[in-house]
């Protein structure tokens, strides 16, 4: 009984770490740049595929490809924000109008990125084995690669939070999240900050893709599936709350793990049910303002 409870908790945390990382990225993009990025899952896919290609073609350690994936997706995200979304933002008559149009534009991005990936890599499923052996913790056994993924996700998540709270540019980002107009007046280069945020959000997704590829099979059309879970996490934690997303990821992981140990075919229904219940009871999310 105790072991199975421990199993549920550990499995929940392992899955939750990945959710948390992806959700933080999406929340950064929505919270600051106000773009509900439907193409967020595509950056996960890009991260995963670049890692897979590096590992299988050149034998590069998946963990090392963090330094390759990070800059690549950052630059892509940065450029997209500087061109597409900046142009939409300046021409939008109102905030809600921008949120609507940017969401739809990101939908277009999803199509484009996915099709390019299909052309480059084909539609086949890919997988590789990395650190796939069991680790025993108090009777509960789980895969080493997922523990690695969890540790990295948590470290990156916390490092990012410290960056937001402690550094000058981090403070500028938070100021912009609070109030873009005032931040602009106070000497923050708002366009730069937004592009930075979007790029960093993409990096979170890309890195999550790196870790994900170590544990699960990957394919070019995987993005939307992860996006849906990410959306749930973001709302669960509160739109615009970075720590909320972090915690929300773990909560959803735990819920999923608990429900699938009882009735696996209901795990996803449970996600949506809890998510919709929360929306009704507390739409601002757990840590939302």
């Amino acid at each position, binding site marked *: 009984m105790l072991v199975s409870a421990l199993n549920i908790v550990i499995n929940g945390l392992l899955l939750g770490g990945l959710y948390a990382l992806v959700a933080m990225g999406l929340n950064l993009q929505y919270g600051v740049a106000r773009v509900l990025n439907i193409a967020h899952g595509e950056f996960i896919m890009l991260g995963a595929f670049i890692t897979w290609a590096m590992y299988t073609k050149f034998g590069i350690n998946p963990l090392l490809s963090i330094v390759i994936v990070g800059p690549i997706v950052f630059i892509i995200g940065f450029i997209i924000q500087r061109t597409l979304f900046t142009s939409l933002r300046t021409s939008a008559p109102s905030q809600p109008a921008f949120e609507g149009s940017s969401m739809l534009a990101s939908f277009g991005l999803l199509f484009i990125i996915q099709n390019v990936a299909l052309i480059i890599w084909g539609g086949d499923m890919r997988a590789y084995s990395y650190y796939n052996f069991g680790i025993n913790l108090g009777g509960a056994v789980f895969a080493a690669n997922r523990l690695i993924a969890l540790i990295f996700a948590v470290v990156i998540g916390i490092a990012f939070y410290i960056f937001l709270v402690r550094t000058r540019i981090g403070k500028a980002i938070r100021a912009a999240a609070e109030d873009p107009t005032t931040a602009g007046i106070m000497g923050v280069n708002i366009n730069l900050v937004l592009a930075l945020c979007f790029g960093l959000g993409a990096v979170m997704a890309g890195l999550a893709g790196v870790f994900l590829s170590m544990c699960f099979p990957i394919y*070019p059309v995987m993005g939307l599936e992860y996006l849906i879970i990410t959306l749930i996490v973001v709302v669960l934690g509160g739109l615009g709350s970075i720590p909320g997303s972090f915690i929300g990821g773990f909560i959803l992981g735990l819920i999923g793990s608990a429900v699938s140990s009882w009735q696996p075919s209901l795990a996803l229904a449970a996600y949506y049910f809890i998510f919709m219940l929360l929306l009704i009871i507390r739409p601002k999310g757990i840590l939302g303002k």
Partner: protein
Amino acid sequence: MRNKSIMFMVSLLLVLVLMALSLFVACPAPAKDKIVVGMSRPLSGPLAIIGDSAFRPIYETWVPMVNADGGIYMSKYGKYLPIELKIYDDKSDVGTMTRLTEKLILEDKVDFLWPACGTSFVFGQAPIANKYGYVLVTAEGGATTIKEALPSLPYLFVSLSFSDWYEVPVLAGILAEQGVKTAYVVYIADLHGIEYSGVFGIELPKKGIQIVGNVSVPPDLKDFAPVITDAMNSGADAFLCEGYPDQVLPAMGTSIALGYNPKVWLGGPGANFGFFHTAFGPAVEGVTCWAVANRKTSPAMKEMYDLLYEGKPEDVHDWWGHPLYWASLDIWKAAVEKVGSTDQDALREVLATTKLDTVLGPTWFTMFGDGGGLMAYESHTGEVGQWINGELEVVGYTGIEETLPNYKATADFVYPKPLWPAPAE
């Protein structure tokens, strides 16, 4: 300025008229110099994973091969005609697939129809093909329910193996011979999974194998640890995971990580692909799956595999579906050449009544009354495979060749499965 707005209106009108016209104008049929084959395939969307790895590499190899010999000999025209493929993208949507299928039939008036991808798509497409009297030899997709529909679908010929008709009785025979007593079943929560779960429930107890666990998982479930833990606790001899690669790969990874070593570990459809081997390396040793043939099966099979996989990574190998898809094209070509024209009714007649040579050997369809047919299980060269020394071998049980004459086991079943190797790092 008046001109500008009028110009605009006129050009807009022109565009609209042109669009309307292009709806109605059908191209006149030119003299017969090729055979046009139409397909609605999932080139984008979630099913692209299946389509791209299953039937697509087959037709992309098979058609150029046939065309290199000049094509198909059509006695009506007294010459060889090359095959031209007309492929549309149904974006993995059934509604779009049904529409594009009718476009191929009605507007493009293709000579022949080749199949859409996936069981539910076949179910959607078959009644339409039937309605217009087009023969449909399927590739991906097949299920027990098709047997109920077959009597009313005379133009449908199903070639892929599926649960009760082909695979599970053979599996049950193998397991029973080895002395398996208990089995734990995990299945994907869709048409495909429910079917296997049901057939396991019938066929395994027939051979005295008790099912001690029967769990469904939704198609997008990521975390298999709770399921594997439950299976481990059940202590079953055989672990049977029936899903797609999306389920089989994580189930395998989790089994290795948790050190779950049942005596039989089956992962169907998923473990039969090359990428399963590249993903797990030596750990695949002893894993069971559905398989039809490998290079040792016959010289014809070796030739096919060499042609199909030459210069390609191991990832794209498929020892289950590929030979059957290839055979379905072989039998289609043989039948078309026998007919010598694009007459669908004659083609149906030949397919329904004749034994024809394919890569499998003599191949024919078992007909359901006046309806359609399933590829005869006696034509199959294999049903169950096992990874042995890094190769996927076809396995069987004592006396299987007596019931299935084409069947050729290429190795003996290894029981129990060796333990997962210790971590390499």
